[in-house]
């Protein structure tokens, strides 16, 4: 059996419509939940001020310890902690430059593209060996 007859026989139209609907609805729900995640976390942080008087945690209780929370530190999405991951993000940018290039040219390109912390990142890439000296103050990109 071929053609529309085969599709009808296998209930193809219904399956495809249902499939697309489920993919969309589950990802829409997911997107709504994720979009509210940071609001919920903010609410959680402010819970003491939001709770009515009397229901707040006991003042005599042990003082809250300041857990090492890296929320205090900037965590830009384009700035992962691992230098190899940073190098992957910088790869397309550096591919645009004519090799060998100066660090100044790289810094300018990064700054123009609003890469966060370009100066620090260029230094880290250099320390990690992704930027290899090619003489005359120029560098080449060593990223697989």
């Amino acid at each position, binding site marked *: 059996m071929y053609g529309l007859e085969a599709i009808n026989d296998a209930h193809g139209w219904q399956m495809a419509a*249902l499939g697309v609907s489920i993919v969309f609805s589950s990802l829409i729900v997911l997107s709504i939940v994720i979009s509210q995640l940071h609001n919920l976390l903010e609410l959680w942080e402010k819970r003491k001020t939001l709770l009515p008087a009397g229901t707040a945690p006991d003042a005599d209780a042990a003082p809250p310890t300041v857990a090492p929370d890296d929320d205090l530190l900037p965590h830009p999405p*384009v700035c992962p902690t691992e230098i190899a991951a940073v190098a992957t993000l910088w790869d397309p940018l550096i591919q645009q430059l004519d090799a060998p290039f100066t660090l100044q040219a790289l810094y300018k390109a990064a700054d123009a593209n609003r890469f966060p912390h370009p100066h620090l990142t260029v230094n880290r890439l250099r320390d990690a060996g992704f930027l290899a000296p090619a003489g005359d103050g120029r560098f080449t990109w060593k990223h697989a």
Partner: protein
Amino acid sequence: MEKFTYFLTATGFANLNGPNMIMMVIALFLLYLGIAKKYEPLLLVPISFGMLLVNFPLSLLMAGPENGQPGGLLHYLYMGIELGIYPPLIFLGIGALTDFSPLISNPKTLLLGAAAQVGIFGTYLGALALGFTNAESASIGIIGGADGPTAIYLASQKAPHLLGAISVAAYSYMALVPIIQPPIMRLLTSKEERAIPMEQLRETSKRERILFPIVVILVTGLFLPTALPLLGMLMLGNLFRECGVTDRLSKAAQNELNNIIVIFLGLTVGAKCSAGYFLTFETIQIIVLGLIAFGIGTASGVLMGKIMNKATGGKVNPLIGAAGVSAVPMSARVVQTVGREANPNNFLLMVAMGPNVGGVIGSAIAAGIFLAML
């Protein structure tokens, strides 16, 4: 003399036939593409070598146990595909390697990942029309997700006899993303649309990144338990990465485990491509349908990008929709390249990573739907 004649008849030369030779040439060509052209070498090299090994005349690598003798090495390694073990383990590695921050900071891009899955269902209909069964059509359609492990997982569960053709098609198109996608992207967008700059993404906190895999698995696991083997492993890998207390596990998932599974998966997928099995009209149909699926996926992602562009008053560059197919990070890189052609100061890579990782989730959900309904 008799022994010498027997020896000659037992060599590969005496048993070489046309189809075997064709497959060996294809394997060598794929090997060339992987090594010389660097088209997905980590996958293409083991796949093509497996293909080469299994097409030698009298090769016993894929032979099952017989007459009390053990089977070939690849026969046992293939169990990992047949039992659906390798693809979820690959997803564990992908989860540990992937930074979901672009998606967390801009969750709307999940819709682009969803739109790109339309190609899967469109091709499913096309395959049905060509006379494939329901399960075969679903396994062929999933190629449109441009997600090799998902395609292999679904095919191994629903149409194991098509596994070789489907996996070769899926991985070939993943490797050919930079060639297939740009013409479709240019065709569907104007230069002005391609030049639209996008806002820098907001920063995400560590807590958000830790909660993300847990929330995703709670939502999708309740929606579609059949998607749990893939999504569960993806999110577990990501939790290893983000929680900050399992660095060793995260590194093992990213490196050793991932690399070992890629070798096993690649070799055994290639080994499934023996001449008698691969050189058929059915395989050609699958490869053509896979290309159509991939094209529709890219086009529907871009069209959804255009809709979002209109809805936001021109703030969304429609190109990022093309990254909704889950070839991570190749399609995001393609978006960056095509965007730069129109506007050299544009930097879309990080924004495109949102729909790109959304596409991974979307294609795993689509696979879960087929597993649940067929």
